[in-house]
């Protein structure tokens, strides 16, 4: 049996469709990959919760490390982490949002300067965090800090690892995240909004201030909070720029050193004189760090959802 099409003999089409085994295999594989992610997340969080939840008591949260860090709490590390990210946010958000507004609203996209800025942002994002740590030490601590001491005629005050330099280094690390998320949010504002504003006689700045920024705000805040949550766990950038192994007091000035949760985890895991005695403290500290990060991520999600709902007219 054969058919003739356009004068050519062709084989008849098969009566039975070929098996879809590859399709089924792929479904299975991709499902497994997805499952793996859930499993890993559950495993990490589960392990930490199971081993850590008994350690996390009020005494643990509010106490200070004792007995060579084999006893006591982590309050100085929590306090230091909070100060660090708050200071970082103050440095990060104005610069990041400002740069993004410039790139998206004012800059001529083809100008060499604009290209240079974009190139820098993308490369900054790819720099390993330990390099930021070294840069922070070289630039902020040894250059900026020491010059400040010299200019102010002080003993070593600014020219040493300190809270302020760690915050600035961390801000620099997160700058690309904030710039990129802000730019994306600005770009996501419909062109019609821009046109409506300009057609009503708004200047460029008025359009940014009253139309673009309010609508981009959910995205900007999300980016800021995500970089805070990321910053809360980064150890490498603060290693040489301000984090302390142990401090008997809480930092009170930007020139003080500070303890930090991520670094404290590293210290507990590697520098303890008694590994077994430290283990519960280590689990507890990791749990607190995880909870802080999850809380921040959750806040970001809720805030974004709420602001979006407001913009859409549901309130």
């Amino acid at each position: 049996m054969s058919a003739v099409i356009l004068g050519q003999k062709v084989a008849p089409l098969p009566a039975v469709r070929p098996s879809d085994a590859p399709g089924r295999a792929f479904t299975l594989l991709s499902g497994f990959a997805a499952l793996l992610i859930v499993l890993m997340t559950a495993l990490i969080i589960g392990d930490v919760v199971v081993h850590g939840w008994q350690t996390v008591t009020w005494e643990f949260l509010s106490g200070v490390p004792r007995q060579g860090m084999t006893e006591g709490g982590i309050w100085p590390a929590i306090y230091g982490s909070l100060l660090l990210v708050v200071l970082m946010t103050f440095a990060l958000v104005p610069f990041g949002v400002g740069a993004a507004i410039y790139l998206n609203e004012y800059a001529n996209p083809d100008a060499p300067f604009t290209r240079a800025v974009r190139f820098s942002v993308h490369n900054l994002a790819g720099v390993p965090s330990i390099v930021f740590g070294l840069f922070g030490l070289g630039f902020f601590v040894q250059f900026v800090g020491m010059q400040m001491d010299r200019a102010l005629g002080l003993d070593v005050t600014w020219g040493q690892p300190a809270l302020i330099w760690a915050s600035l280094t961390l801000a620099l690390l997160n700058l690309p995240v904030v710039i990129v998320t802000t730019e994306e949010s600005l770009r996501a504002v419909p062109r019609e909004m821009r046109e409506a504003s300009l057609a009503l006689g708004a200047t460029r700045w008025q359009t940014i201030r009253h139309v673009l920024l309010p609508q981009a705000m959910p995205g900007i805040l999300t980016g800021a909070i995500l970089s805070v949550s990321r910053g809360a766990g980064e150890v490498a950038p603060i290693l040489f720029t301000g984090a302390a192994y142990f401090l008997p007091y809480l930092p009170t000035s930007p020139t003080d050193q500070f303890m930090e949760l991520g670094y404290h985890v590293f210290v507990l895991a590697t520098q303890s004189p008694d590994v077994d005695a430290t283990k519960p403290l280590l689990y507890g500290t990791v749990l607190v760090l995880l909870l802080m990060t999850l809380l921040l991520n959750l806040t970001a999600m809720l805030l974004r959802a709420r602001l979006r709902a407001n913009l859409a007219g549901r309130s």
Partner: protein
Amino acid sequence: MVTDVPTIRTRLADAPATDPAATPPQASPPHLVARDFHLFYGSNEALKGVSLEIPARTVTAIIGPSGCGKSTLLRSFNRMNDLIPNVRVTGELRISELNVLARDTDVVDLRRRVGMVFQRPNPFPKSIFENVVFGLRLLGVKDRGELEVRAEDSLRRAALWDEVKDRLDHSAMALSGGQQQRLCIARSMAIEPEVLLMDEPASALDPTATARVEELILELKSRYTIVVVTHNMQQAARVSDRTAFMMQGELVEFGDTRQLFTSPHKKLTEDYITGRFG
């Protein structure tokens, strides 16, 4: 408020030939003028020497197939095309005495004099009230009483007041498409422009909402010079005093709407309005 669709008559059918309103006043100086206006997107010539004169307080429709340059021409009068990179223009555009294209023309001032309504309703995600007073706030009006009076006046003129007066603080995004478009018209009227440019103002609306917008255009022409771009020839016939037919960047024919639709001078116009292409 019930929309009374049948009252929106087709002017072609009803208006007697001698109706003085059907013929725009020729004696007064033109309000909008284009002289040998060319516009290029890069090397592509989108408008090829358009010249026309639009009298004050009339409705002019610009019709033509997609891509003929009608929206581009409209958006040139308030220099919205400035937003597009690599646009180059030659020739002359005037609004009364104002040279639109001159280098020292204040674009912000120009846009205050020339309001624009867009194809898709584009209210801001703010309250109805804040939408209407947006332009007033930009002008520095802060007095709450004055804002309220002006908002009510604009909303009344846009025939929207009765529908929204009890919920001025609600989000504009919750309004229907037709209401949103009338809100946008109210918003542009609030800053007292002389000219209203409308870029296919009803193309995203259902027939009832379209009818209301058309009705509004007819009411508003006693105060404003209105230019409407439309792809809908029935709409052009219903609302306009004069019609411009454009094709491939050129103004083919421009004249009295009634005459253009019943006995066009150019073969091209006749082919288009009788549906032979387009």
